[in-house]
């Protein structure tokens, strides 16, 4: 079953197209990534799918419910962690969760149990009674994730869950996200961190200027750019290249020899290594070292857009200014 289906989903702001005819399907149980630079339209997409913004045109179904005509059912079935903070800083962590649970209609006893469970999931039980304004950025983020899970949603939206967090905290959040995936929660996650999309997601849609430019598993996306290569330092690179040509078991392109080092492009370097080793052993060639270069999603982004994703990464100040200008 598909947990999200969109058809030509489009959002315009005063004539400016922020999301441009998005066609997506996300399968149940999948961890699906929206990867794109700042301003690509990720948050706008999230707002439409979570019923907070009405699409200008196109349609979408979330958990089988239409976002326009069945907004209430959509809201009942999802959990959302927005890009910007949406906790009440003046309330304790417990009160934030308790009020959330009531807004979602979770009855008393069950609510207490769930609050306890989600606080434990994000390692914050001893902070339950502290006001949120004393929390660090990472703790607030964890609490927001806990809150998004309180109603045991079938589908969780995470809009840039690790934005602005230090690497260690980011690792922690990744661990929670992986834990959720193992529990079978479907997740749609947006990010402009390439490593995050690569590390976490089953499939990634690369979006730029409101359009999907590529969509596949991270591995398949990276294969497209054909940037994978192997460098072998060995006793007889010429002979090894000839063996490779004879055996045909390893696909290779652009072979080059420099000194003792043979370099060639291959779509799946991981698979190629043992085969190369076998060939070398048979031909009695001594291998000193093997190195592989794998393309990153960055290479993929450049391949499709001609730019680096990092060039457009806005600083905190830019982000603030952008939000102020658009009148939030």
């Amino acid at each position, binding site marked *: 079953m598909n947990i999200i289906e969109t058809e030509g989903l489009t959002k315009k702001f005063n004539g400016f197209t922020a999301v441009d005819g998005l066609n997506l399907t996300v399968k149940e149980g999948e961890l699906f990534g929206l990867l794109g630079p700042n301003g690509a339209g990720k948050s706008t997409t999230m707002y439409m799918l979570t019923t907070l913004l009405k699409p200008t045109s196109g349609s979408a179904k979330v958990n089988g419910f239409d976002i326009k005509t069945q907004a209430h059912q959509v809201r009942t079935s999802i959990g959302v962690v927005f890009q910007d903070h949406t*906790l009440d800083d003046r*309330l304790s962590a417990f009160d934030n969760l308790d009020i959330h649970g*009531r*807004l979602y209609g979770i009855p008393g006893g069950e609510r207490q149990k769930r609050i306890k469970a989600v606080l434990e999931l994000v390692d914050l039980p001893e902070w339950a009674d502290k006001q949120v304004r004393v929390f660090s950025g990472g703790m607030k983020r964890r609490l927001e994730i806990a809150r998004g899970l309180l109603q045991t949603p079938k589908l969780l939206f995470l809009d840039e869950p690790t934005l602005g967090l230090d690497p260690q905290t980011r690792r922690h959040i990744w661990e929670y996200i992986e834990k959720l995936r193992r529990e079978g929660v479907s997740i749609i996650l947006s990010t402009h961190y390439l490593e995050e999309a690569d590390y976490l997601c089953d499939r990634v849609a690369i979006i730029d200027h409101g359009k999907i430019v590529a969509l596949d598993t991270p591995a398949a996306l990276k294969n497209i750019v054909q940037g994978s290569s192997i460098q072998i330092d060995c006793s007889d690179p010429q002979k090894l290249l000839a063996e490779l040509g004879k055996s045909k078991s390893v696909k290779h392109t652009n072979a080059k020899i420099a000194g003792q080092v043979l370099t060639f492009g291959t779509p799946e370097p991981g698979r190629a290594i043992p085969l190369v080793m076998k060939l070398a052993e048979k031909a009695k060639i001594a291998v000193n070292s093997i190195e592989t270069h794998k393309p990153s999603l960055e290479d993929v982004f450049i391949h499709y857009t001609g730019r680096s994703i990092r060039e457009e990464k806005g600083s905190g100040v830019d982000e603030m200014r952008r939000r102020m200008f658009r*009148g939030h």
Partner: protein
Amino acid sequence: MKCGGVCSVAIELDKIYAVWLREFKRFTNSKGRMVGSLGMPLLFMFALGSGIGSLMPGLNYNLFIVPGIVGMTLLFNSMFSGVSIIWDREFGFLKEMLVAPTDRLNIVLGRILGGATTSVLQGLIILLLGTFMGMSLPAAPQFLLTVLVMALIAASFVAVGIAFASVIREVETFQLVMNFVIMPLFFLSNALFPLDKMPDWLRVIASLNPLSYGIDAMRDLLLNAGAYPLMLDLSVLFAFFAVVTVIASYLFGKTSI
């Protein structure tokens, strides 16, 4: 959740309660702000009460001003409470409420009740402190009616605040509401001056101001000195409350993040 009609009504009521609870907890969690917001009314009551009182022969101004200042406290705190949706939009909590499976109407009702509760509590503090001005508290029935009147005033102005906050998107615009709505409502009312001592133009404006009827009702109940019949005051208050609640619900229903 498998349960019948009664149960689903209880769940809806719990959602209204959730919004109420948030307002109330914010209030009890920030006592400093509460004390701060009592400062101005107290200054008005004691300084203005004694000062202007000496200029008004034939009127016990010390007592006269107490219901006016209670009205002021209700007006300011209720409008602030309603308008604070602007800050919820700015700091994100509005998204949390709007993405929940909770009808907008329930959010409005919860906020009206929550803002009214905290405002009435502050109004009651002013009223009790008013006894230092020589006012004696009335018998239980009048006192309860007074609380009802206070609740109507408070609820109505929370609704007015919500209506403004639903339309206004920028935080800066709050200053506009303060200067062009709250201040005029206060000064162009009978809070500080008796209707019969006002110049005609001011009396006409004050008699169009719903706050005047609330304060007049309190003067009637607390001092037995109302300018209008109590029934008229109450009718105007109820009508005003109904109208602004409908407007607030409508406008909040259309607001977006």
